[in-house]
């Protein structure tokens, strides 16, 4: 039993659209207002403790991490946004941000995975199309393949 190429393509498009819609819904879902301690923790995990060999500020036990957590809590309590609080920490403890900046050379960390994903997807799509085209063009020069024979037998069964 064969499916028309148009129908096959439509199902891929529907699946892609569905996946995209779910992704957008998940990313933009309103989780309600986060508590101040949740915000403090979410900021703390994006900041590196300067003396703890890679631990983040939210989890590190070092005194400086404790001091930085105090700063985060105080700045949040004063009404600053998360980005403003990160700015305060960056000013006091430079080079401790774990989230790469969105500008300059380091922004490539954000851009390159997307580029690789797009190129990879395009390459796969092209490869699939070529394989399918090769299969269609071959037009069974050496007789029907085993799959076609099996399909035919299944259809012929009462």
């Amino acid at each position: 039993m064969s499916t028309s190429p148009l129908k096959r393509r439509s199902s891929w498009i529907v699946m892609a659209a569905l996946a995209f819609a779910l992704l957008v819904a998940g990313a933009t879902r309103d989780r309600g207002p986060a508590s101040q301690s949740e915000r403090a923790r979410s900021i703390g995990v994006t900041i590196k403790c300067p003396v703890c060999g890679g631990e983040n500020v939210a989890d590190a036990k070092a005194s400086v991490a404790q001091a930085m957590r105090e700063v985060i809590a105080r700045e949040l309590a004063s009404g600053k946004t998360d980005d403003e609080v990160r700015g305060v920490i960056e000013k006091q403890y430079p080079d401790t941000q774990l989230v790469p900046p969105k500008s300059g050379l380091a922004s490539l960390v954000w851009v390159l995975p997307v580029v690789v994903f797009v190129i990879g997807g395009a390459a796969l799509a092209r490869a699939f199309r070529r394989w399918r085209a090769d299969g269609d063009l071959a037009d069974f020069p050496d007789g029907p393949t085993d799959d076609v024979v099996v399909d035919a037998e299944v259809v012929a069964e009462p």
Partner: protein
Amino acid sequence: MTDGVAEAPRPRRVAPFVTLGLAVLIAAMVVVFARAPKGERPDTAATELMNKLAPPIEGETLDGGRFSLSARRGSWVAVNFFQSTCGPCITEQPELALFNDAQGSLPLARRTELVSVVFVDSAENVRKFFANNGGGNWPVLPDSRAEISPAYGVAKVPETWIIDPDGVVRERIIANVTAVGLQGVVDRLRATP
């Protein structure tokens, strides 16, 4: 064209170009990560605060008095950040006591005021620290709300900062100091306009 049959066009080979492109992208990512700051404490005392107005230091001292750096304008001030459990701080403490005692024998114009800021520690531990290691007969600020040390970007102790009579940061020392060494630094800074 042979035998009237068109030769099938050769498929263009894309894979090598895609592979090359991906290799370039991965190489670029390696470069980006290699250049990323490590976030570890630098071995240098460089600070953005150098030659700028020192962040405020004020509050209640360990003995219940008040201290304000801004009220010390006109004097050289040495600000020492320490913690009772820090080994180098314990080694340094008698030297700070010597430094502070020596100020009394200097002409007024050459004296330096010493102030200690506690780096995340309890008042009880700090009192024991001074009882065991001497000193503490100068202003000691508990900084229990972590307002002072983050403003100076202190990540490890001991650290000693020298503030000039205009309230400007002139030196940051990220090792333990000696009485003679600290006096030498202040004298050098005094001689440098």
